[in-house]
């Protein structure tokens, strides 16, 4: 489970009693509870003037509920990866009869690369387990010089040495086998994509078990797979 469920360092999963309690509160929500009222415009001024300048000395910060996260463009090996929380204004989700989830458009990605990224998550993939014991998801974040794939592996069985290693891929087409390896992983990790790799084209994230047989191509033994879907 993610670190959000672990609480103060104890590794208990979300227990049943807590789930029921939270679900009961959530079920009692009304739409009014979702609507917030703005305080009077002078309220902050009143608060800050109650203090000496130490507490409040700062350049004026405008309220940005969609403020982009600082860039994490370096490749980092994170054992606990906190999810980017991007608050967004309410938008209607476009629903259709067929699969309604929007796939990344090449145009969108092009614009982002040109403007220079800031760590904002632009796409995400829920990874479907293709074998037992695997839970994972991936996010695509716009970084300074391209994209970072943030791989969050919540459940990853340890492999015996004889079984091989985990390798992560971005797949363009399962039919033609066009894919790009992003290397070996042993846990959650942020991976800088190679500059020429367009995630709109290579949009399927795949985690496989690769035996140490000297064969560089995909073993065919995938354990997690999902398609990156636009968050923008």
């Amino acid at each position, binding site marked *: *489970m*993610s670190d*959000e*469920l672990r*609480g*103060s360092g104890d590794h208990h999963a*979300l227990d049943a009693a807590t789930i029921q309690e*939270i679900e009961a*509160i*959530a*079920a*009692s*929500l*009304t739409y009014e*509870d*979702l609507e*917030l*009222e*703005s*305080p*009077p415009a002078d*309220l*902050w001024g*009143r*608060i800050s003037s*109650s*203090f000496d300048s130490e*507490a*409040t*000395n*700062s*350049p004026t*910060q405008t*309220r940005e*509920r969609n403020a*982009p*996260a*600082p*860039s*994490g463009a370096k490749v*980092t090996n994170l054992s606990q990866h*906190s*999810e*980017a*929380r991007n*608050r*967004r204004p309410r*938008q209607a*989700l476009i*629903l*259709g009869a067929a699969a*309604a*989830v929007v796939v990344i458009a090449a145009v969108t990605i092009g614009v982002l690369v040109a403007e220079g990224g800031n*760590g904002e998550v632009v796409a995400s993939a*829920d990874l*479907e387990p293709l074998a037992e014991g695997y839970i994972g*998801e991936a996010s695509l*974040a716009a970084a300074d010089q391209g994209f970072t794939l943030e791989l969050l592996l919540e459940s990853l069985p340890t492999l015996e040495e004889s079984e091989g290693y985990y390798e992560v891929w971005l797949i363009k087409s399962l039919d033609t086998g066009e894919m790009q390896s992003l290397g070996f992983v042993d846990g959650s990790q942020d991976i800088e994509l190679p500059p020429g790799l367009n995630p709109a084209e290579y949009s399927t994230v795949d985690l496989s078990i690769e035996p140490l047989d000297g064969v560089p191509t995909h073993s065919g033994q995938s354990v997690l797979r999902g398609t990156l*879907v636009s*968050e923008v």
Partner: protein
Amino acid sequence: MSAPDPDPLRAVEAGFSSGDDGALEAVYNEYGSLVFTYCRRSLGPDTAADVSQEVFLAAWRARGRFDPDKGSLPGWLMGITKNKIIDHLRAKGRRITTVGSTETVEIVGMSDEVSNLGDRMLVADALASLPERARLIVEMAFLEDLTHTQIAERTGVPLGTIKSDIRRGLARMKRNLDGLR
């Protein structure tokens, strides 16, 4: 230590705990409406701003006691707000003077309502912080009372994704509520 935290809200929490310049304003920008709305819906429009002001002053003074491992900052703030609201209701003499134990029951009832509203608003805040798809799915599950299957039929989103979105939503709600308790 580690790479910059990609979560801007965690950065706000960290700045607040450290007592950074401008940290309280950042917290106000993020959670001012949440605190004010709780006050307003519990106390009415006249005193909501005054009590909100007291909350942020008290929060700043007590910032050393906020522990991000024990729960979220909005949860902690709303805990302070709840106490201020209840203190205010008591001070205004809202208790009905009656004989025997009815007076006690009245205060308990009032505290429950205030407490329930605070819980709901924190759950709503957690919901609002979710990514677009997860938020809409959690809304459909809890506000529209749709089953996972019904949500899957209406959105075309796979059942597994729906379950994981709801799990993520519950985790956010837990972190908010943990701060309150």
